[in-house]
């Protein structure tokens, strides 16, 4: 379990990082926290020629608030967000983070790294899709914004180009009467979810994002009732020895209905508070 040799670059500017990736011509890989990437390297499932460490780029370590949204930079650790007031301002993030790996992984793992790794059973890509977040990808031609819902292209596959760095994610702050729900079922705490759900309720509109149920997060927005058939249709993974497709469907439906109920109740409670 030793990674194959690789060239290592830790530039101090984003331009240098992009140039390093571009000159590697597809053989480069960005590392930030490395908590998903290092196991892949240790098992030699990946042998990048050059690892570009972005931790030397000071500007990527920022958390900034503006216009009802918060922007989290690429080297911000998951645990820093978990402890920040951010987890109250973006409640879904606060609800999801304790489920991301273990505390020891969140010490080093980054929010943006999890988004870029795109494991179909990961929590944070689902949160980003549920909240309709935007990621910024920076490459040779400058930065571009992509909606999280458009970003995921399959299992561990995204719209990120070989010379691009996912430099930040922009998440909308919660409004007072919003309601949220989040739950997942894994065999052990910290394992990848067999099925999981993130829910956002605003007025009569429900946004449900499932993860672990397809090759990418699956999002549906419904006004009014969310039917069981709609939830079932979101699950299209083949399943495996741990859980068949039917089992995951059942699991997802139960989790989703439960969390939609909680999110509606939370939203309703806040509305009633406001009326008084």
């Amino acid at each position: 379990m030793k990674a194959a040799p690789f060239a290592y670059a830790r530039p101090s500017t984003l331009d240098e990082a992009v140039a390093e990736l571009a000159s590697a011509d597809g053989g480069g890989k960005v590392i930030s926290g490395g908590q998903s990437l290092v196991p892949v390297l240790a098992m030699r499932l990946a042998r990048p020629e050059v690892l570009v460490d972005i931790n030397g780029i000071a500007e990527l370590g920022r958390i900034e608030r503006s216009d009802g949204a918060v922007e989290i930079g690429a080297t911000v650790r998951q645990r820093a967000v978990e402890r920040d007031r951010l987890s109250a301002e973006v409640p879904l993030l606060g609800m999801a983070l304790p489920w991301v790996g273990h505390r020891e992984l969140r010490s080093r793992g980054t929010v943006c790294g999890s988004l870029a790794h795109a494991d179909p059973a990961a929590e944070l890509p689902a949160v980003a899709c549920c909240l309709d977040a935007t990621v910024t990808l920076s490459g040779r031609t400058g930065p571009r914004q992509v909606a999280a819902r458009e970003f995921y292209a399959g299992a561990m596959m995204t719209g990120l180009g070989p010379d691009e760095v996912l430099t930040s994610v922009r998440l909308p702050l919660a409004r007072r009467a919003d309601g949220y729900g989040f739950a997942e079922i894994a065999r052990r705490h910290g394992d990848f979810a067999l099925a999981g759900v993130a829910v956002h309720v605003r007025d009569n509109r429900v946004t449900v994002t499932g993860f672990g149920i397809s090759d990418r997060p699956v999002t549906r927005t419904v006004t009014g009732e969310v039917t069981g058939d709609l939830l079932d249709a979101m699950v299209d993974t083949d399943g495996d020895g741990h859980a068949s497709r039917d089992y995951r469907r059942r699991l997802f439906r139960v989790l989703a209905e439960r969390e939609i109920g909680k999110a509606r109740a939370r939203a309703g409670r806040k509305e009633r508070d406001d009326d008084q």
Partner: protein
Amino acid sequence: MTTSERTPRPVRAEAGDLVEVRLTVNGTPATLRLPARVTLSDALRDHLGLTGTHVGCEHGVCGMCTVLVDGQAARACLLFAVQLDGADIVTVEGLGRPDRLHPLQEAFGRNHALQCGFCTPGFLLSAYDLLATTPEVPTEELPQELSGVLCRCTGYRNIIAAVREAREESADGLPAPANCGSRALVGRAAGQAGHDAQQAAAGPEKPVAVDVVPPRGEPTVTVCVSTEVAVGSGQVWDVFDDIHLLARCLPGAELTEDLGGGLYAGRAKMAVGPVKLAFTGAARILEHDRASGRLRVLAQGRDTGGAQTQADIELRTEAVGQGTVLRADAKVYLTGRIAQFGRALAGDISRRMFEQFAASVGEAATSGRAPEGPVKPPGAIRLMLGTLLERLRPARRSRGAR
């Protein structure tokens, strides 16, 4: 303790070069020169002689190697030491003195919270981080909070009892690690991880002609894909008859040698996100019958990293109107490292590869050539496969995707 907001120094090192890293380990400054791929756990054990940090799985599952990095628990096998320039590391050696153990260690002793002791350093530092950062952690959350370290003696109850006791004893705050201070760190066998750079540069292995043995047992993944192509079954069989053309319909695959008797040597590359595998192997055609519309192929391959795959593939064609329904049934067997990516992931990826294969066969049957760019298969999988192909053929990334 808080996370220090330091920005590490810029570095550019070729594979095999030694990189300078400055760490503070248990209060002692240490400057190491290491290849970039050396993990913190190996740096501590092999270069600094601090063997109290244990190494179990080496890929971030078991938690044995948990240490404190800038005051927070982290897995030392998931960090490259070069990434930690300027960091403050505390290992179990820094926690207590031989004559005066840390209160956590005392509590572990009193509660018999260790049997074989292999997981103990990991549990101690995970528990230290927990109690230092959230001293108010409720008892019922302890099992979940301590789930980042595994104990194969399964002595969890005693471990949880020890941590609970340490929490109650240190209501005024958990004492800091007591054995940190400036002292000589005795190194061992320095630089041993740097030797095989040339080995890796030796290039891909030559395909070895071996016989293809039928796989046995339960397949890892079963794939069943059916697609309709708008050409007659005769044209589809023209593709099946040209075995080289057929192989190229599988993204990243080609036949390199005809070994006679229906046996072929070949290679295949696949890429899924950061995962890149290059297989060399062989395929044997078991059945090739145009009349009954059946083609059965056994294939096996091995990646240089030790991943192995075998597949039993049956292709069937059926004329429907002007077109042909192409059905692929495949039993895929994965062993070695690739099987670590079990879950449903292997199934989803295999299924989509066969969907791409079926679409390419359709394209080849129409044009007589294996498609060189992304083929648009029907339905919602188009986007994913476009990206997959772009990754498989990075040279073709420039604009004009068809």
